[in-house]
């Protein structure tokens, strides 16, 4: 079992991975660019754990134990001894390539290098290292501590052993792994994006309003949240970036971004992070809406960790 883990980049995803793995009993060292960023990440994780306590999901003692397993640093060298490093910096090829190049130098030759990309080519990233067989993708669903799924992504040179070890690791941190081969959008992103895009078309074409679109999918198809609320939570700029990526890579019209999406991004209504997207949100990211009947939530409690 993997006991020590390295993470590079402590944004939302990196923090989520740190929290999830520490909660599973793994000691985590994460690397950020400055001491301020390190402190910010620790404060962020602490705040998330406090919210968990407020939601009855965690006790104060458990919080202390989890935090005691997480340490931040600004030096790649501190990741030297760990058997597995997950890179979770911004989803840009150049940035990730630089990180991979630097990590490859300090990490022990047997160690596995994981990238948490949702769109980039594992094979291309592996090319800047001397361990292409030990480079693999792990695409976590967000928020990481709440979603029990991870896509394990094979690059062209990823070895079976590496895939196996990463799958075992996923199991240890209580995630269900599905295996996909490198391809634009992998599986989850590729399937959900056209749905979100189509929902926006429905609104744009005046077929139904945003609230009814979401209600239809929640009640009719048992979705834990509607596609438009999901888009708001992901960030509409992110959705647009992904759609453009798929459209560019695959060229199929079904990936053409909905004009309404472009319009909203241009207007700066990016969803939860700006307080307004298809719906309105308060500063804690809670949907400001009429009281949704609690009854249907009982039968659809949503996935738990």
């Amino acid at each position, binding site marked *: 079992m993997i006991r020590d883990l390295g993470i590079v980049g402590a944004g939302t995803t990196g923090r989520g991975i740190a929290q999830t793995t520490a909660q599973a*009993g793994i*000691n985590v060292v994460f690397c950020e660019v400055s001491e301020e960023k390190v402190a910010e990440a620790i404060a962020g994780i602490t705040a998330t754990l406090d919210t968990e306590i407020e*939601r*009855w999901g965690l006790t104060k003692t458990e919080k202390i134990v989890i935090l005691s*397993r997480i340490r931040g640093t600004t030096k790649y060298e501190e990741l030297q001894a760990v058997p597995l490093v997950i890179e979770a910096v911004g989803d840009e090829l150049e940035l990730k390539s630089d990180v991979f190049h630097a990590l490859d130098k300090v990490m022990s030759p047997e160690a596995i290098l994981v990238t948490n990309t949702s769109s980039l080519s594992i094979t291309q990233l592996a090319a800047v290292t001397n361990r292409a067989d030990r480079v693999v993708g792990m695409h976590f669903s967000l928020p990481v501590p709440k979603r029990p799924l991870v896509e394990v992504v094979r690059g062209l040179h990823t070895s079976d052993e590496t895939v196996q070890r990463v799958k075992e690791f996923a199991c240890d941190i209580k995630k269900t792994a599905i295996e996909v081969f490198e391809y634009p959008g992998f599986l989850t992103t590729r399937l959900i994006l056209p749905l979100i895009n189509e929902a926006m078309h429905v609104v744009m074409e005046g077929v139904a309003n945003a609230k009814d679109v979401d209600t239809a999918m929640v009640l009719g198809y048992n979705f834990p949240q509607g596609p438009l609320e999901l888009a708001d939570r992901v960030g509409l700029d992110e959705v647009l970036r992904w759609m453009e990526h798929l459209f560019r890579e695959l060229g199929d019209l079904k990936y053409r971004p909905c004009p309404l999406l472009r319009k909203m991004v241009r207007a700066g209504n990016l969803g939860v992070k700006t307080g307004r997207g298809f719906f309105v949100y308060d500063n804690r990211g809670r949907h400001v809406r009429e009281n949704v009947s*609690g*009854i249907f939530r*009982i039968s659809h409690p949503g*996935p*738990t960790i």
Partner: protein
Amino acid sequence: MLVLVLNCGSSSVKFQLIRTSPEEIEAGTEKKLARGNIEKIGMTTAIVSFQAEGRPSVKENPVILEHRVAIERVLELLSDPTVGIIKDSSEIGAVGHRVVHGGEKFSKSQVITDEVYRRIVECCELAPLHNPHNVRGYEIARELLPDVPHVAVFDTAFHQTIPEYAYLYGLPMIFYRRHGIRRYGFHGTSHRYLTYRMQQLLGRPQSEFNLITCHLGNGCSIAAVLRGHSIDTSMGFTPLEGLLMGTRSGDLDPAIILHIMAKEELTLHEANTLLNKHSGLIGISGVSNDMRELVKEAQNGSKGAQTAIEMFCYRLKKYISAYHGVLGGADAVAFTGGIGENSPLVRELSCKGLECLGIIVDRERNEKLNGSEGRISTDDSRVGVYVVPTDEEIVIARDTANAIAGKL
């Protein structure tokens, strides 16, 4: 024979080395040779404490990441030339394992054969938080001590005598058949120890008296013991049911949790943690899950602490009264566990007003008894009320020796 008693939890290993055998049990010459604890396994530093009879005690904080390393350390400590008590681990004649859940498969302790092992593993489904660690402890101990018999002693076994009408829930029968939904009860080893010990205190064989046993620790349960057999207990399918506990709610209208889950949009995990870790004494008082602290806080005027204590004792009283009836009259009530052994206040309040049932606590006797054994009822109390510090390890050691000798 030297029996190593092992109790493996998620991050701890508790152990004792006890000299016992059917003959020594008979002659009363059993002896505890060593005891210890390894806590915080898998964390930055573990806490090891160890004390062998007549040897210097040990406290250390090594890095122990796995149960295997912990159990290896146990064997090293026991055979250490300075602090240990045996020359080498070959002196250990048997290992007794505490196993939380034996389901309906086990009504008494068992020498672990391949078949028994397979059935214990099957019980993991019923106690996913506990049994896997017990099983892991066994697997490691078997590798380290392959030549001696290993015996499993189950927390649920003592309660397997509970009759069907008492162990079933008012749900469609299909759930019992499909998922084994029924009352299993826990703390069986402790309730059994009290039953055994009360024979000596009452000077009568267990077939001649009825008993109410109250195990009040961090988890709390109470049992009705009819002539030596458990016929009802407060913990149910899981340890969540029954008495109010440190952090668990105990009895609850099941509709409440559905209602709260809907109102607060809780997930299953959050609801589970709410009931098991945020409720009970800590949830009500908002102060502590520790009865000692609560008594202090209540004296300082904390309303929350006072309410928590009142609720705790009231529920206990309700169960004592009910079990008195269930038994057709109890001859004695026995208190044990951290709270039962050390809180005169809880014992007093939970028996207050039960004079009509023949239960009269003597104030002075009750106040004087703290962590030791004895009677706290008045001389004219029809029902004897006792404090009996529990000893689950000795029960495990004896069962181990007896199971090997085929005397269970």
